Protein backbone atom coordinates (compact mmCIF):
# COMPACT_ATOMS: atom_id res chain seq x y z
CA UNK A 1 0.00 0.00 0.00
CA UNK A 2 1.46 3.34 -1.08
CA UNK A 3 0.88 6.26 1.25
CA UNK A 4 1.36 9.74 -0.17
CA UNK A 5 2.95 12.02 2.40
CA UNK A 6 2.16 14.91 0.07
CA UNK A 7 -1.57 14.26 0.36
CA UNK A 8 -1.37 13.79 4.13
CA UNK A 9 0.56 17.03 4.42
CA UNK A 10 -1.99 18.83 2.22
CA UNK A 11 -4.80 17.76 4.56
CA UNK A 12 -2.70 18.74 7.60
CA UNK A 13 -1.88 22.17 6.15
CA UNK A 14 -5.55 22.75 5.37
CA UNK A 15 -6.54 21.68 8.90
CA UNK A 16 -3.88 23.91 10.44
CA UNK A 17 -5.14 26.97 8.58
CA UNK A 18 -8.76 26.13 9.32
CA UNK A 19 -8.05 25.34 13.00
CA UNK A 20 -6.22 28.64 13.53
CA UNK A 21 -9.41 30.46 12.47
CA UNK A 22 -11.75 28.24 14.46
CA UNK A 23 -11.56 29.74 17.95
CA UNK A 24 -14.52 27.76 19.26
CA UNK A 25 -12.45 24.60 19.02
CA UNK A 26 -8.85 25.80 19.07
CA UNK A 27 -9.24 27.69 22.37
CA UNK A 28 -9.72 24.40 24.28
CA UNK A 29 -6.02 23.68 23.95
CA UNK A 30 -5.41 26.51 26.42
CA UNK A 31 -7.29 24.79 29.24
CA UNK A 32 -4.64 22.17 30.18
CA UNK A 33 -1.89 24.78 29.80
CA UNK A 34 -3.64 27.19 32.17
CA UNK A 35 -4.27 24.38 34.67
CA UNK A 36 -0.63 23.33 34.34
CA UNK A 37 0.49 26.86 35.19
CA UNK A 38 -1.86 26.93 38.21
CA UNK A 39 -0.65 23.55 39.45
CA UNK A 40 2.96 24.68 39.05
CA UNK A 41 2.33 27.89 41.02
CA UNK A 42 0.47 26.14 43.83
CA UNK A 43 3.21 23.56 44.19
CA UNK A 44 1.06 20.49 43.53
CA UNK A 45 3.67 17.85 42.85
CA UNK A 46 2.07 14.43 43.29
CA UNK A 47 1.99 12.04 40.35
CA UNK A 48 -1.80 11.66 40.25
CA UNK A 49 -2.17 15.44 39.83
CA UNK A 50 0.37 15.49 37.00
CA UNK A 51 -1.48 12.68 35.25
CA UNK A 52 -4.83 14.29 35.84
CA UNK A 53 -3.42 17.15 33.75
CA UNK A 54 -1.81 14.90 31.15
CA UNK A 55 -4.93 12.76 30.72
CA UNK A 56 -7.03 15.93 30.54
CA UNK A 57 -4.72 17.32 27.86
CA UNK A 58 -5.07 14.12 25.86
CA UNK A 59 -8.84 14.04 26.29
CA UNK A 60 -9.31 17.72 25.44
CA UNK A 61 -6.77 18.12 22.67
CA UNK A 62 -6.41 14.70 21.10
CA UNK A 63 -9.99 13.49 21.54
CA UNK A 64 -12.16 16.62 21.65
CA UNK A 65 -10.35 18.50 18.90
CA UNK A 66 -10.16 15.42 16.67
CA UNK A 67 -13.82 14.63 17.28
CA UNK A 68 -14.85 18.19 16.33
CA UNK A 69 -12.60 18.25 13.23
CA UNK A 70 -14.12 15.03 11.92
CA UNK A 71 -17.69 16.00 12.87
CA UNK A 72 -17.32 19.35 11.09
CA UNK A 73 -16.06 17.63 7.94
CA UNK A 74 -19.18 15.45 8.10
CA UNK A 75 -21.54 18.32 8.88
CA UNK A 76 -20.23 20.45 6.00
CA UNK A 77 -20.06 17.48 3.60
CA UNK A 78 -16.37 18.06 3.03
CA UNK A 79 -15.44 14.59 4.28
CA UNK A 80 -17.29 13.09 1.31
CA UNK A 81 -15.24 15.33 -0.98
CA UNK A 82 -12.05 13.92 0.52
CA UNK A 83 -13.41 10.38 0.27
CA UNK A 84 -14.17 10.88 -3.43
CA UNK A 85 -10.65 12.15 -4.12
CA UNK A 86 -7.76 9.78 -4.88
CA UNK A 87 -6.59 10.05 -1.26
CA UNK A 88 -6.71 6.66 0.49
CA UNK A 89 -8.34 5.99 3.86
CA UNK A 90 -4.90 5.97 5.47
CA UNK A 91 -3.95 9.30 3.91
CA UNK A 92 -7.20 10.95 4.94
CA UNK A 93 -7.35 9.59 8.50
CA UNK A 94 -3.59 10.08 8.90
CA UNK A 95 -3.68 13.62 7.52
CA UNK A 96 -6.65 14.50 9.68
CA UNK A 97 -4.94 13.10 12.79
CA UNK A 98 -1.63 14.92 12.37
CA UNK A 99 -2.91 18.23 13.72
CA UNK A 100 -4.34 16.65 16.88
CA UNK A 101 -1.18 14.58 17.37
CA UNK A 102 1.22 17.49 17.06
CA UNK A 103 -0.85 19.85 19.21
CA UNK A 104 -1.37 17.19 21.89
CA UNK A 105 2.35 16.52 22.17
CA UNK A 106 3.12 20.25 22.36
CA UNK A 107 0.36 20.94 24.91
CA UNK A 108 1.41 17.99 27.12
CA UNK A 109 5.03 19.10 27.01
CA UNK A 110 4.20 22.71 27.87
CA UNK A 111 1.69 21.66 30.56
CA UNK A 112 4.18 19.28 32.16
CA UNK A 113 6.87 21.95 32.13
CA UNK A 114 4.56 24.51 33.72
CA UNK A 115 3.38 21.98 36.32
CA UNK A 116 7.03 21.19 37.01
CA UNK A 117 6.73 17.49 36.15
CA UNK A 118 10.04 15.92 35.17
CA UNK A 119 9.66 12.16 34.63
CA UNK A 120 12.43 9.96 35.95
CA UNK A 121 12.70 8.24 32.56
CA UNK A 122 11.68 10.62 29.79
CA UNK A 123 11.91 8.04 26.99
CA UNK A 124 9.54 5.53 28.58
CA UNK A 125 7.01 8.15 29.59
CA UNK A 126 7.20 9.86 26.17
CA UNK A 127 6.60 6.55 24.38
CA UNK A 128 3.61 5.78 26.61
CA UNK A 129 2.16 9.26 26.13
CA UNK A 130 2.52 9.08 22.34
CA UNK A 131 0.83 5.66 22.31
CA UNK A 132 -1.97 6.96 24.54
CA UNK A 133 -2.38 10.01 22.32
CA UNK A 134 -2.89 7.74 19.31
CA UNK A 135 -5.66 5.98 21.24
CA UNK A 136 -7.37 9.25 22.15
CA UNK A 137 -7.13 10.53 18.56
CA UNK A 138 -8.63 7.30 17.33
CA UNK A 139 -11.44 7.52 19.88
CA UNK A 140 -12.05 11.14 18.83
CA UNK A 141 -12.24 10.02 15.20
CA UNK A 142 -14.77 7.31 16.09
CA UNK A 143 -16.96 9.76 18.02
CA UNK A 144 -16.66 12.32 15.22
CA UNK A 145 -17.71 9.74 12.62
CA UNK A 146 -20.75 8.87 14.76
CA UNK A 147 -21.81 12.51 15.18
CA UNK A 148 -23.83 14.41 12.61
CA UNK A 149 -22.64 17.88 13.63
CA UNK A 150 -20.03 19.67 15.72
CA UNK A 151 -22.73 20.49 18.27
CA UNK A 152 -23.64 16.83 18.65
CA UNK A 153 -19.97 15.84 18.75
CA UNK A 154 -19.19 18.26 21.56
CA UNK A 155 -22.03 16.76 23.62
CA UNK A 156 -21.16 13.14 22.84
CA UNK A 157 -17.50 13.62 23.71
CA UNK A 158 -18.09 15.13 27.17
CA UNK A 159 -18.89 11.96 29.18
CA UNK A 160 -15.98 10.22 27.45
CA UNK A 161 -13.68 13.06 28.44
CA UNK A 162 -14.89 12.70 32.04
CA UNK A 163 -14.09 8.96 32.06
CA UNK A 164 -10.62 9.39 30.60
CA UNK A 165 -9.51 12.54 32.38
CA UNK A 166 -10.84 12.43 35.94
CA UNK A 167 -11.76 8.74 35.68
CA UNK A 168 -8.57 7.78 37.52
CA UNK A 169 -10.49 8.54 40.74
CA UNK A 170 -12.48 5.38 40.01
CA UNK A 171 -9.54 3.39 41.36
CA UNK A 172 -10.36 4.72 44.86
CA UNK A 173 -13.65 2.81 44.80
CA UNK A 174 -12.36 -0.51 43.48
CA UNK A 175 -12.21 -2.08 46.97
CA UNK A 176 -15.85 -1.20 47.62
CA UNK A 177 -17.11 -2.08 44.14
CA UNK A 178 -15.04 -4.96 42.65
CA UNK A 179 -16.77 -4.58 39.29
CA UNK A 180 -14.83 -1.36 38.85
CA UNK A 181 -11.64 -3.46 38.56
CA UNK A 182 -12.35 -3.49 34.83
CA UNK A 183 -11.55 0.23 34.83
CA UNK A 184 -8.00 -0.56 35.92
CA UNK A 185 -7.35 -1.68 32.34
CA UNK A 186 -8.31 1.67 30.86
CA UNK A 187 -5.38 3.33 29.07
CA UNK A 188 -5.42 6.40 31.35
CA UNK A 189 -5.10 4.22 34.46
CA UNK A 190 -2.40 2.12 32.79
CA UNK A 191 -0.50 5.32 32.00
CA UNK A 192 -0.54 6.27 35.69
CA UNK A 193 0.55 2.74 36.65
CA UNK A 194 3.40 3.03 34.17
CA UNK A 195 4.43 6.47 35.44
CA UNK A 196 4.41 5.19 39.04
CA UNK A 197 6.76 2.35 38.10
CA UNK A 198 8.99 4.77 36.22
CA UNK A 199 9.23 7.07 39.25
CA UNK A 200 10.20 4.02 41.29
CA UNK A 201 13.14 3.51 38.93
CA UNK A 202 11.54 1.21 36.33
CA UNK A 203 12.67 1.11 32.71
CA UNK A 204 11.11 -0.21 29.51
CA UNK A 205 11.43 -3.81 30.71
CA UNK A 206 9.41 -3.08 33.84
CA UNK A 207 6.46 -1.47 32.09
CA UNK A 208 5.94 -3.87 29.21
CA UNK A 209 2.55 -5.00 30.52
CA UNK A 210 1.24 -1.43 30.74
CA UNK A 211 2.64 -0.61 27.30
CA UNK A 212 1.07 -3.77 25.89
CA UNK A 213 -2.35 -2.92 27.34
CA UNK A 214 -2.19 0.63 25.96
CA UNK A 215 -1.05 -0.75 22.59
CA UNK A 216 -4.01 -3.15 22.67
CA UNK A 217 -6.36 -0.19 23.09
CA UNK A 218 -4.64 1.62 20.21
CA UNK A 219 -4.94 -1.38 17.89
CA UNK A 220 -8.58 -2.01 18.82
CA UNK A 221 -9.51 1.65 18.31
CA UNK A 222 -7.66 1.75 14.96
CA UNK A 223 -9.62 -1.28 13.74
CA UNK A 224 -12.93 0.30 14.76
CA UNK A 225 -11.91 3.62 13.16
CA UNK A 226 -11.02 2.06 9.81
CA UNK A 227 -14.16 -0.09 9.84
CA UNK A 228 -16.39 2.89 10.61
CA UNK A 229 -14.65 5.14 8.10
CA UNK A 230 -15.10 2.59 5.31
CA UNK A 231 -18.78 2.26 6.22
CA UNK A 232 -19.15 6.04 6.04
CA UNK A 233 -17.73 6.01 2.51
CA UNK A 234 -20.98 4.41 1.36
CA UNK A 235 -24.46 5.78 2.14
Amino acid at each position, binding site marked *: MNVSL*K*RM*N*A*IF*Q*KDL*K*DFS*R*NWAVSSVILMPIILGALFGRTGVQDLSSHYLLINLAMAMVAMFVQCCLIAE*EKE*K*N*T*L*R*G*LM*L*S*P*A*SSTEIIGGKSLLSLIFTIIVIYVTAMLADYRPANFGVVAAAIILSTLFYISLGTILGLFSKSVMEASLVVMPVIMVFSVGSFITNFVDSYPILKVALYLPNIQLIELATKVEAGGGFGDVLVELAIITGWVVASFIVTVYLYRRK*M*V*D
Partner: protein
Amino acid sequence: MNNIIEVSGLAKVFGNEKALESVDFHVKRGEIFGFLGPSGSGKTSTIKILTGQLTPTSGKATVFDESVSQMKKSEFRRRFGVLTDNSGLYGRLSIQDNLKLYCELYDVPVSKIDEVLDVVNLREDKSKRVSTLSKGMMQRVTLARALLHEPELLFLDEPTSALDPMNSLHIHEGLRALNAKGTTIFLTTHDMQEADALCDRIAFLNQGSIQLLDKPDKLKKRYSDSTITVELLNEEKVVLPAGAEGAQQLFDYMNNNQVVTIHSNEPTLGQIFVKVTGRKLA
Protein backbone atom coordinates in the same frame (compact mmCIF):
# COMPACT_ATOMS: atom_id res chain seq x y z
CA MET B 1 -14.61 0.59 -25.28
CA ASN B 2 -17.21 2.96 -26.65
CA ASN B 3 -19.46 3.16 -23.61
CA ILE B 4 -17.99 4.77 -20.51
CA ILE B 5 -21.06 3.91 -18.41
CA GLU B 6 -23.31 0.88 -18.81
CA VAL B 7 -26.31 0.30 -16.61
CA SER B 8 -28.79 -2.56 -16.83
CA GLY B 9 -31.63 -3.52 -14.54
CA LEU B 10 -30.36 -1.17 -11.86
CA ALA B 11 -32.55 -0.95 -8.78
CA LYS B 12 -32.18 0.69 -5.40
CA VAL B 13 -34.59 0.25 -2.53
CA PHE B 14 -34.45 2.28 0.70
CA GLY B 15 -36.59 0.43 3.23
CA ASN B 16 -39.99 0.16 1.58
CA GLU B 17 -39.27 2.91 -0.92
CA LYS B 18 -38.06 2.16 -4.43
CA ALA B 19 -35.64 4.89 -5.52
CA LEU B 20 -34.70 3.14 -8.76
CA GLU B 21 -36.56 0.36 -10.50
CA SER B 22 -34.84 -1.48 -13.32
CA VAL B 23 -32.96 1.40 -14.95
CA ASP B 24 -31.16 0.71 -18.25
CA PHE B 25 -28.98 3.11 -20.18
CA HIS B 26 -25.47 3.64 -21.44
CA VAL B 27 -23.32 6.72 -21.84
CA LYS B 28 -20.98 6.91 -24.80
CA ARG B 29 -17.44 8.08 -24.30
CA GLY B 30 -17.18 11.78 -25.12
CA GLU B 31 -20.86 12.67 -25.01
CA ILE B 32 -22.83 14.97 -22.74
CA PHE B 33 -25.60 12.83 -21.33
CA GLY B 34 -28.56 14.53 -19.65
CA PHE B 35 -30.38 12.72 -16.88
CA LEU B 36 -33.59 14.59 -16.27
CA GLY B 37 -36.27 14.08 -13.72
CA PRO B 38 -38.21 15.73 -10.93
CA SER B 39 -36.98 15.80 -7.33
CA GLY B 40 -37.00 12.34 -5.82
CA SER B 41 -36.95 10.56 -9.17
CA GLY B 42 -33.64 8.85 -8.41
CA LYS B 43 -31.12 11.10 -10.19
CA THR B 44 -28.83 11.63 -7.22
CA SER B 45 -29.10 7.96 -6.20
CA THR B 46 -27.93 7.02 -9.69
CA ILE B 47 -24.91 9.33 -9.45
CA LYS B 48 -24.11 7.96 -6.01
CA ILE B 49 -24.28 4.38 -7.29
CA LEU B 50 -22.11 5.19 -10.30
CA THR B 51 -19.47 6.84 -8.12
CA GLY B 52 -19.39 4.04 -5.54
CA GLN B 53 -21.11 6.04 -2.79
CA LEU B 54 -24.18 3.86 -2.72
CA THR B 55 -24.58 0.11 -3.18
CA PRO B 56 -27.28 -0.91 -5.64
CA THR B 57 -29.95 -3.35 -4.48
CA SER B 58 -29.84 -5.24 -7.77
CA GLY B 59 -28.80 -4.87 -11.40
CA LYS B 60 -25.50 -4.17 -13.04
CA ALA B 61 -23.62 -0.92 -13.44
CA THR B 62 -20.16 -0.46 -14.87
CA VAL B 63 -18.02 2.65 -15.23
CA PHE B 64 -14.77 2.50 -17.23
CA ASP B 65 -15.71 -1.17 -17.90
CA GLU B 66 -15.39 -1.92 -14.19
CA SER B 67 -18.09 -2.69 -11.66
CA VAL B 68 -19.13 0.41 -9.72
CA SER B 69 -17.95 -1.30 -6.52
CA GLN B 70 -14.42 -0.63 -7.83
CA MET B 71 -15.02 3.12 -7.91
CA LYS B 72 -13.92 3.36 -4.26
CA LYS B 73 -10.36 2.70 -5.42
CA SER B 74 -8.00 5.65 -5.79
CA GLU B 75 -7.06 4.72 -9.36
CA PHE B 76 -10.68 5.16 -10.46
CA ARG B 77 -11.49 8.18 -8.29
CA ARG B 78 -8.69 9.99 -10.09
CA ARG B 79 -10.52 9.42 -13.37
CA PHE B 80 -13.89 10.93 -12.50
CA GLY B 81 -15.09 14.16 -10.93
CA VAL B 82 -18.31 14.78 -9.03
CA LEU B 83 -20.32 17.88 -8.28
CA THR B 84 -23.43 17.28 -6.21
CA ASP B 85 -25.75 19.78 -4.59
CA ASN B 86 -24.20 19.05 -1.20
CA SER B 87 -20.53 19.12 -2.21
CA GLY B 88 -18.94 20.90 0.72
CA LEU B 89 -16.34 23.61 0.95
CA TYR B 90 -14.19 24.86 3.83
CA GLY B 91 -15.90 28.08 4.84
CA ARG B 92 -13.02 29.57 6.83
CA LEU B 93 -10.60 29.14 3.94
CA SER B 94 -10.30 31.17 0.77
CA ILE B 95 -11.39 29.90 -2.64
CA GLN B 96 -7.73 29.49 -3.53
CA ASP B 97 -6.95 27.46 -0.38
CA ASN B 98 -9.93 25.20 -1.01
CA LEU B 99 -8.74 24.49 -4.54
CA LYS B 100 -5.10 24.18 -3.51
CA LEU B 101 -6.00 21.24 -1.26
CA TYR B 102 -7.59 19.44 -4.20
CA CYS B 103 -4.65 20.25 -6.49
CA GLU B 104 -2.44 18.36 -4.07
CA LEU B 105 -4.89 15.51 -3.59
CA TYR B 106 -5.11 15.02 -7.38
CA ASP B 107 -1.44 15.82 -8.12
CA VAL B 108 -2.42 18.79 -10.25
CA PRO B 109 -0.13 21.87 -10.47
CA VAL B 110 -1.41 24.84 -8.43
CA SER B 111 -1.21 26.94 -11.62
CA LYS B 112 -4.35 25.10 -12.77
CA ILE B 113 -6.41 27.03 -10.20
CA ASP B 114 -6.55 30.23 -12.26
CA GLU B 115 -7.54 28.25 -15.33
CA VAL B 116 -10.60 26.65 -13.67
CA LEU B 117 -11.53 29.89 -11.93
CA ASP B 118 -11.69 31.51 -15.36
CA VAL B 119 -14.21 28.86 -16.42
CA VAL B 120 -16.49 29.72 -13.49
CA ASN B 121 -15.76 33.46 -13.64
CA LEU B 122 -14.24 33.72 -10.16
CA ARG B 123 -10.59 34.50 -10.75
CA GLU B 124 -10.90 37.98 -9.30
CA ASP B 125 -12.46 36.56 -6.12
CA LYS B 126 -9.97 33.81 -5.38
CA SER B 127 -8.73 35.41 -2.15
CA LYS B 128 -12.23 35.69 -0.71
CA ARG B 129 -13.22 33.48 2.17
CA VAL B 130 -15.76 30.89 1.10
CA SER B 131 -18.06 31.75 4.04
CA THR B 132 -18.54 35.23 2.56
CA LEU B 133 -19.68 33.95 -0.86
CA SER B 134 -23.23 33.74 -2.17
CA LYS B 135 -24.78 30.33 -2.81
CA GLY B 136 -24.24 30.73 -6.53
CA MET B 137 -20.57 31.60 -6.06
CA MET B 138 -20.11 28.58 -3.81
CA GLN B 139 -21.67 26.39 -6.47
CA ARG B 140 -19.19 27.80 -8.98
CA VAL B 141 -16.29 27.01 -6.63
CA THR B 142 -17.42 23.39 -6.26
CA LEU B 143 -17.70 23.17 -10.02
CA ALA B 144 -14.19 24.59 -10.39
CA ARG B 145 -13.00 21.96 -7.93
CA ALA B 146 -14.59 19.19 -10.00
CA LEU B 147 -12.87 20.52 -13.14
CA LEU B 148 -9.37 20.81 -11.62
CA HIS B 149 -8.07 17.40 -12.66
CA GLU B 150 -9.82 17.36 -16.07
CA PRO B 151 -11.52 14.05 -15.37
CA GLU B 152 -12.38 11.55 -18.08
CA LEU B 153 -15.91 11.46 -16.70
CA LEU B 154 -17.64 14.29 -14.88
CA PHE B 155 -20.84 13.84 -12.89
CA LEU B 156 -22.72 17.10 -12.47
CA ASP B 157 -25.83 17.18 -10.29
CA GLU B 158 -27.73 20.43 -10.99
CA PRO B 159 -24.55 22.42 -11.72
CA THR B 160 -26.27 25.73 -12.44
CA SER B 161 -29.33 25.52 -10.17
CA ALA B 162 -28.31 28.54 -8.07
CA LEU B 163 -26.80 30.62 -10.86
CA ASP B 164 -28.00 33.65 -12.77
CA PRO B 165 -28.39 33.30 -16.57
CA MET B 166 -25.09 35.08 -17.31
CA ASN B 167 -23.05 32.75 -15.14
CA SER B 168 -25.00 29.72 -16.35
CA LEU B 169 -24.09 30.59 -19.94
CA HIS B 170 -20.47 31.12 -18.96
CA ILE B 171 -20.39 27.71 -17.32
CA HIS B 172 -22.07 26.07 -20.30
CA GLU B 173 -19.24 27.41 -22.46
CA GLY B 174 -16.70 25.99 -20.02
CA LEU B 175 -18.42 22.60 -20.01
CA ARG B 176 -18.53 22.51 -23.79
CA ALA B 177 -14.81 23.31 -23.91
CA LEU B 178 -14.08 20.56 -21.40
CA ASN B 179 -16.23 18.15 -23.40
CA ALA B 180 -14.39 19.13 -26.57
CA LYS B 181 -11.15 18.09 -24.84
CA GLY B 182 -12.63 14.62 -24.30
CA THR B 183 -14.40 14.71 -20.93
CA THR B 184 -17.66 12.77 -20.89
CA ILE B 185 -20.30 14.63 -18.90
CA PHE B 186 -23.18 13.03 -17.01
CA LEU B 187 -25.52 15.89 -16.20
CA THR B 188 -28.63 15.94 -14.08
CA THR B 189 -30.74 19.05 -14.26
CA HIS B 190 -34.24 20.44 -13.92
CA ASP B 191 -33.41 23.07 -16.48
CA MET B 192 -34.77 21.89 -19.83
CA GLN B 193 -33.10 24.72 -21.73
CA GLU B 194 -29.78 23.74 -20.22
CA ALA B 195 -30.34 20.11 -21.23
CA ASP B 196 -31.39 21.15 -24.70
CA ALA B 197 -28.38 23.42 -25.13
CA LEU B 198 -25.76 21.06 -23.75
CA CYS B 199 -26.78 17.43 -24.10
CA ASP B 200 -26.13 15.06 -26.96
CA ARG B 201 -28.69 12.64 -25.54
CA ILE B 202 -31.11 12.84 -22.68
CA ALA B 203 -32.97 10.37 -20.52
CA PHE B 204 -36.19 11.18 -18.70
CA LEU B 205 -36.28 9.53 -15.30
CA ASN B 206 -39.58 9.29 -13.50
CA GLN B 207 -40.57 7.26 -10.47
CA GLY B 208 -37.35 5.30 -10.60
CA SER B 209 -37.37 4.25 -14.23
CA ILE B 210 -36.38 5.74 -17.58
CA GLN B 211 -39.38 6.82 -19.63
CA LEU B 212 -37.61 8.18 -22.71
CA LEU B 213 -34.04 8.27 -23.99
CA ASP B 214 -32.91 9.93 -27.20
CA LYS B 215 -31.33 13.00 -28.77
CA PRO B 216 -33.20 16.20 -27.85
CA ASP B 217 -33.91 17.01 -31.51
CA LYS B 218 -35.31 13.56 -32.21
CA LEU B 219 -37.53 13.73 -29.14
CA LYS B 220 -38.85 17.11 -30.18
CA LYS B 221 -39.59 15.85 -33.67
CA ARG B 222 -41.23 12.72 -32.32
CA TYR B 223 -43.55 14.73 -30.08
CA SER B 224 -44.12 17.56 -32.51
CA ASP B 225 -47.78 18.16 -33.46
CA SER B 226 -46.66 18.86 -37.09
CA THR B 227 -47.91 22.41 -37.20
CA ILE B 228 -46.32 25.78 -37.82
CA THR B 229 -47.25 29.16 -36.38
CA VAL B 230 -47.26 32.10 -38.78
CA GLU B 231 -47.24 35.63 -37.39
CA LEU B 232 -48.94 38.06 -39.76
CA LEU B 233 -48.54 41.80 -40.28
CA ASN B 234 -51.80 42.44 -38.43
CA GLU B 235 -50.21 40.67 -35.35
CA GLU B 236 -52.50 37.70 -35.80
CA LYS B 237 -50.90 34.29 -35.15
CA VAL B 238 -52.14 31.49 -37.37
CA VAL B 239 -51.43 27.81 -36.70
CA LEU B 240 -51.13 25.81 -39.93
CA PRO B 241 -50.73 22.06 -40.50
CA ALA B 242 -47.33 21.14 -41.90
CA GLY B 243 -48.83 19.23 -44.86
CA ALA B 244 -49.96 20.34 -48.32
CA GLU B 245 -52.99 22.21 -47.05
CA GLY B 246 -50.86 24.33 -44.71
CA ALA B 247 -48.33 24.91 -47.48
CA GLN B 248 -50.99 26.40 -49.73
CA GLN B 249 -52.21 28.74 -46.98
CA LEU B 250 -48.66 29.76 -46.15
CA PHE B 251 -47.99 30.41 -49.83
CA ASP B 252 -51.05 32.66 -49.96
CA TYR B 253 -49.93 34.66 -46.92
CA MET B 254 -46.45 35.01 -48.37
CA ASN B 255 -47.77 35.93 -51.77
CA ASN B 256 -49.73 38.75 -50.15
CA ASN B 257 -46.65 39.91 -48.16
CA GLN B 258 -48.48 39.29 -44.88
CA VAL B 259 -45.89 37.10 -43.13
CA VAL B 260 -43.67 38.49 -40.35
CA THR B 261 -42.31 35.25 -38.85
CA ILE B 262 -42.75 31.49 -39.20
CA HIS B 263 -42.13 29.07 -36.30
CA SER B 264 -42.27 25.30 -36.28
CA ASN B 265 -44.30 24.13 -33.30
CA GLU B 266 -41.88 21.70 -31.69
CA PRO B 267 -42.59 21.02 -28.05
CA THR B 268 -40.01 21.96 -25.43
CA LEU B 269 -38.34 19.15 -23.52
CA GLY B 270 -40.35 20.25 -20.50
CA GLN B 271 -43.60 19.82 -22.41
CA ILE B 272 -42.50 16.39 -23.60
CA PHE B 273 -41.66 15.41 -20.06
CA VAL B 274 -45.09 16.45 -18.82
CA LYS B 275 -46.74 14.63 -21.71
CA VAL B 276 -44.84 11.41 -21.05
CA THR B 277 -44.92 11.35 -17.27
CA GLY B 278 -47.86 13.53 -16.34
CA ARG B 279 -45.53 15.28 -13.90
CA LYS B 280 -43.79 18.63 -13.91
CA LEU B 281 -40.06 18.92 -13.43
CA ALA B 282 -39.79 20.50 -9.99
